[in-house]
């Protein structure tokens, strides 16, 4: 039995189990509940700090909802099992941290190539390598974009609070389903373990999506075609008698391998890119504060966006025209908007918990007459309002 | 001087070995620059097999053959597939027994030497397998792209131990034929 998450029985179960209201919970738990509300009924994972609470919440809750929790032998097995389950029609997720994310890179590429919807949560911790296992960081920004080999597009979201994680996870599932693609959630160790007030909504408030299925035999025969012109082929699930062939090798629209014809590769990989590029409206999202008249723009993401907002508010109190731009979908980067904003401001500050990653994206979209500066901090402690404010004052 | 050479046929005819020997003769024994590439398509598993050598007296920028100056076709499939990539006026060797259907109209723009290469090889050495070496011999003297001595040394380097003499016999027969061709006697 394949559960999509929006069946009356499932809605009934959700209503019975999760009363709407405010709860005090960890970011990891909020994220897991988001997945549950989004219809995720298959989780395969492997223990790793600081993501383990997501697994533990799923292990506790999924069986109640007729869902499956699997602990695999490693992270490679986890993402593999997810892809397998997704092809049977389940909505699937795994959560890990940097070292596990590194291990998953090969199969993440497989999921991109085979257009398998899945949600992969990377609770970033301080690295490289084993680093500071319990400390948060934002060092996997570019790994999420470029970690697997070969030409590939990717969608990655990054929530800024526990509450946000709940909703962004639902959005991640919706994007994954709608565009038949893996979606990476760049969470972090700080938010993962922070307990905050999280409002669990009424089930009716949550809108969820399920992948396009083939409407007829014809469509099912082209699991990697583009019958609707939106770059997203319907997904002929296993077990429906379609005899679908799925491969990570370069394949034709019918799924059969052809690794020798340059045009076949060109057509496939360009569609994969186009599918993401032309459906910006499905995933592009950012937040703006005081950008209308800002002279100094702070661009930030994830956990750092919060002290950044604090700093901008304080700066405003001091009469400095500061503004804040927060990409919520960090890949593909909202470059057009960045370009527009970049034209209007004098200086751009990019605070992040790494030695400078998103700033390189920003740099691509602004001209050299804008002062661009990173505010970088590593070591596991989030940037403070004061630290960011000091830099704002410095360029004011 | 940039010369592009194409060898093509089917698996087992020694197409790739021929290209390696030519490249080696040019690069190691003539002091020229040479690049050898081969296709790793499905052809390498039974279908048409193709190898290219680019030879030049200056460093070679683009490493692939765009419009071969010299070409050898050992099978119908190879002939039909790659003939049209050669440059006008190119010198082309065709295994006439294995390429029954030829485009004589197109060949008018080329210098074509069509010979029953496999048969000649067998008659010369008793081994049809030496056809590729025979062809190298023809190419050497017909085009002058490398010298005889260089070609002999490169051949000895590359063929299996114990088969040197047989292969040299094939090569020298090729020299003879190429010489004749150059003089317009074939």
């Amino acid at each position: 039995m394949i559960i999509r998450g929006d069946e009356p029985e499932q809605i009934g179960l959700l209503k019975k189990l999760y009363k709407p209201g405010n709860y005090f919970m960890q970011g990891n738990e909020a994220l897991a509940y988001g997945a549950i509300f989004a219809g995720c009924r298959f989780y395969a994972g492997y223990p790793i700090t600081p993501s383990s609470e997501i697994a533990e919440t799923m292990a506790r809750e999924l069986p109640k909802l007729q869902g499956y929790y699997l602990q695999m032998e490693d992270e490679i097995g986890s993402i593999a099992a997810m892809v397998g389950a997704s092809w049977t029609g389940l909505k699937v997720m795994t959560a890990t941290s940097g070292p596990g994310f590194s291990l998953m890179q090969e199969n993440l590429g497989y999921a991109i190539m085979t257009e398998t919807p899945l949600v992969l949560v990377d609770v970033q911790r301080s690295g490289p390598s084993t680093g500071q296992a319990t400390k948060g960081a934002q060092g996997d920004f570019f790994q999420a974009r470029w970690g697997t080999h070969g030409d590939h597009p990717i969608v990655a979201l990054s929530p800024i609070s526990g509450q946000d994680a709940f909703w962004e996870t639902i959005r991640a599932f919706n994007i994954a389903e709608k565009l038949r693609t893996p979606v990476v959630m760049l969470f972090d160790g700080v938010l993962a373990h922070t307990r905050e007030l999280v409002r669990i909504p009424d089930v009716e408030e949550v809108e969820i999506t399920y992948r396009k299925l083939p409407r007829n035999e014809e469509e099912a025969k082209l699991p990697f075609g583009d019958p609707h012109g939106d770059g997203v082929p319907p997904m002929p699930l296993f077990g429906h008698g379609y005899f679908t062939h799925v491969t990570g090798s370069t394949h034709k629209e019918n799924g059969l391998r052809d690794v020798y014809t340059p045009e076949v590769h060109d057509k496939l990989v360009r569609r994969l890119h186009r599918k993401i590029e032309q459906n910006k409206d499905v995933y592009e999202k950012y937040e703006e504060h005081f950008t209308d008249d800002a002279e100094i723009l702070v661009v930030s993401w994830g956990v750092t966006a919060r002290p950044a907002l604090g700093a901008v508010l304080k700066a405003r109190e001091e009469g400095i025209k500061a503004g804040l731009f927060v990409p919520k979908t960090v890949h593909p980067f909202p470059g057009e908007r960045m370009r527009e904003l970049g034209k209007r401001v004098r200086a751009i500050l990019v605070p992040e918990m790494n030695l400078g990653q998103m700033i390189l994206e920003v740099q691509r979209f602004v001209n050299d007459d804008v002062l661009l500066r990173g505010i970088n901090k590593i070591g596991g402690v989030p940037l403070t309002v004061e630290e960011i404010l000091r830099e704002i004052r410095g360029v004011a | 001087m940039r010369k592009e050479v194409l060898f093509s046929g089917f698996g087992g005819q020694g197409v790739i070995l021929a290209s390696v020997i030519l490249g080696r003769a040019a690069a190691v024994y003539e002091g020229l620059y040479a690049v050898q590439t081969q296709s790793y398509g499905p052809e390498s598993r039974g279908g048409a097999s193709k190898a290219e050598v680019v030879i030049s007296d200056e460093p070679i920028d683009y490493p692939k053959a765009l419009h071969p100056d010299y070409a050898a076709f050992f099978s119908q499939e190879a002939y039909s597939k790659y003939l049209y990539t050669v440059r006008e006026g190119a010198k082309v060797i065709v295994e006439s027994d294995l390429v029954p259907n030829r485009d004589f109209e197109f060949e008018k723009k080329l210098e074509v030497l069509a010979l029953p290469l496999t048969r000649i090889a067998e008659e010369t050495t008793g081994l049809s397998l030496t056809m590729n070496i025979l062809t190298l011999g023809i190419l050497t003297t017909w085009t002058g792209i490398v010298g005889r001595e260089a070609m002999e040394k490169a051949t000895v380097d590359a063929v299996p131990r114990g088969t040197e003499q047989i292969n040299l016999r094939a090569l020298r027969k090729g020299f003879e034929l190429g010489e004749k061709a150059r003089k317009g006697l074939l």
Partner: protein
Amino acid sequence: MAKEIYSKYPLIKYLRKEALPTALCPGCGGGTVLNAFANAVDQLKLDPKDLVVVSGIGCSAWIASPYFLADTLHTTHGRAIAFATGVKVGLPDKKVVVISGDGDLASIGGNHLLHAARRNIDITVILVNNFIYGMTGGQLAPTTPFGAKTTTSPYRNIEHPLKISETIASAGASYVARWTTAHVYQLIESIKKALTVKGFSLVEVISQCPVQYGRRNRMKEPAEMLRWFLKNSVPISKARKMSEEELEGKFVIGEFVNRERPEFVTELNKLIDEVQEHFGLKGE
């Protein structure tokens, strides 16, 4: 003439015609395995719609993928069983079959093989053991016999081959058997049993790769390799009475285990039932 025999081959209905001919070299044992598998499916009267075939990377991964006409998932190197685990959980009523090679399943994928056997998940694995990495050009595999030559052990293999069937039997599989491509009837019977048994089943098939293995080990012809298999095969009942030294270089064939053990997906669903019962969620 050859064409006629081809079209009369009754099991062609199980093959994906647009993908033919296969990419397997002449004399490869993969064809025998594909044939045995199709025969087993046919004899059991299984509907291919109830099959999902999963494979990894390598020549043997191509045996059923894409040539067998069912849902086929061709995955990354070594991970087929982990992918299959997800498929089986999602589709517990379907037969999930993994057909792949020794390098794929027992080298890079060895861990997934072990853990699937431990879980005893209801997946049938047909492991084609040809002692070599064929696709990449004949490198050493963890199954390469001691002393054999490969491109990465040019002076002979100094490592000991992994005894796959023995290891998987002790890891907890429900059904394990080993045959060679010279034992086609037994092979078909074992595949049938493996497809029927509830739990993890492994059929290891010793198979010939004349091009990459045989050629480098003085057996250029497929027939020579089959003769080698036949000459060195020892039935398991006899092998039990033999010493380790006597068994050096032999292929122990037969059924290693055939037992009932709790199966993973059944246990998982049982657990879900109990949890739902416990929280009063049944019948919602």
